[in-house]
């Protein structure tokens, strides 16, 4: 069931941010919605279940994006490891403040990795003038909405899991 939810969420998020969001004026420079999802996987799901999805998502995004292959794979993998590392030192649980900061840091981290790759690979002689504006906007959006997305993923997963568990129980009762 978790795999079903993870695959559906991945597809939904990828399609949403490649087909719908670029055409909405305010959201065309929205942060990567897969970051809250990866943070959710890191915080709430076991490693053997979530790690393949993190790598799968990185692979998909690298294929869809125009950047050098492996950028998203790298970003997501290290972000995931970072989240796992944080959970070893801090009890995150349902603390919204920590979740928000983790997601915003994830967004900042992704942008730094992308900008760092430009600098290392020298694909861009000089950063676009609005680079700071884009990064700041994305981090701000993440601070405002990141934890909401994570809670949404968590609750949806919980509800679907409960739904799946109840149905066989009911069937047994009726039978």
């Amino acid at each position, binding site marked *: 069931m978790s795999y079903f939810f993870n695959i559906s969420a991945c597809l939904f998020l*990828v399609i949403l*941010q*490649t*087909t719908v969001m*670029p*055409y909405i004026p305010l959201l*065309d*420079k929205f942060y*990567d919605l897969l970051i809250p999802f990866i943070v959710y996987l890191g915080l709430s799901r076991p490693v053997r279940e979530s790690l393949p999805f993190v790598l799968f998502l990185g692979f998909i*995004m690298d*294929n*869809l*994006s*125009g*950047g050098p292959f492996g950028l998203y794979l790298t970003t997501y993998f290290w972000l995931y490891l970072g989240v796992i590392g944080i959970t070893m030192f801090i009890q995150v649980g349902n603390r919204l403040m920590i979740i928000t900061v983790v997601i915003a840091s994830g967004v900042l981290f992704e942008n730094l990795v*992308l*900008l760092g790759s*430009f600098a290392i690979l020298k*694909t*861009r002689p000089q950063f*676009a*003038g*609005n680079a700071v504006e*884009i990064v700041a906007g*994305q981090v701000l959006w993440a601070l405002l909405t990141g934890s909401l997305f994570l809670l949404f993923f968590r609750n949806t997963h919980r509800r679907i899991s409960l739904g799946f568990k109840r149905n066989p129980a009911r069937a047994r009762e009726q039978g």
Partner: protein
Amino acid sequence: MFSRKMVLIVGFIVLIAVNIIGLSVTSRRSTSFGIERIALSAIAPFQELVTRSLRFTRNIWRTYFYLVTIARVNQVLLQDLSQAVQNKNQWHETELANMRLRDLIDFQRNISERVVAAEVIGKDPSAWFKTVIIDKGEADGLTRGLPVVIAQGIAGQVIEVSNHYSKVMLIVDSNSAVDSLVQRTRARGVIKGESTDQCRLDYVLRKNDVRIGDTIVSSGLDGVYPKGLRIGFVSQVIEHNADIFHEVIVTPFVDFEKLEEVLVILEVQKHDWANRP
């Protein structure tokens, strides 16, 4: 003396006569005796009550209960209206698509190369890269490096191909470069993307004349884009005293935010320098 039967008959005739006379008298008189008033005063309130009640009921029926039917009719009408609006919108979209496709066909007639029309189905998930996904791939004859154009000008080039889909790097991407000419003065330079809505024209020597509004076209020397395709217009020229090149900002003719259909040029006529006579 008179039989009972006789009395009844006479009485009946008299009654009829009195009735007729009475009627003829009352029909000529306009004044009433007041009984009518009493009757009117006594009955009218009940009449009024009943009538008002009936009207009230009728109004309730018409304005409330009858509204159930009207609401249903209204719902049907709203659905019809919604359908009509949807149809109108669809027709409008079709009309716009028709206009765009006409432009593309007109443009297609003007270029000699074989082309394939494709639709944009997705955009780059990152704000840092400017690529789009189109719905044509290897099965349609696409390969890496093919130029992608629309009627307004050059859009980009194919950088990845799958069986039925391809990824196109737009000319505004920071990895893009197009060998170009200033149409008026034939000054040469390289159009580079900025990952914004604008490009830069690099390597234009200061001795060359470049002015705001000049049209930039492809030179054809990069082996990717055919010669003479429009790219954009010069929107800013910045002079640096210590530099041998102009700093030229170019605004592309293509509105990349509204890119929906494109043409992929399948066979670019390349300069065959090796076998040149």
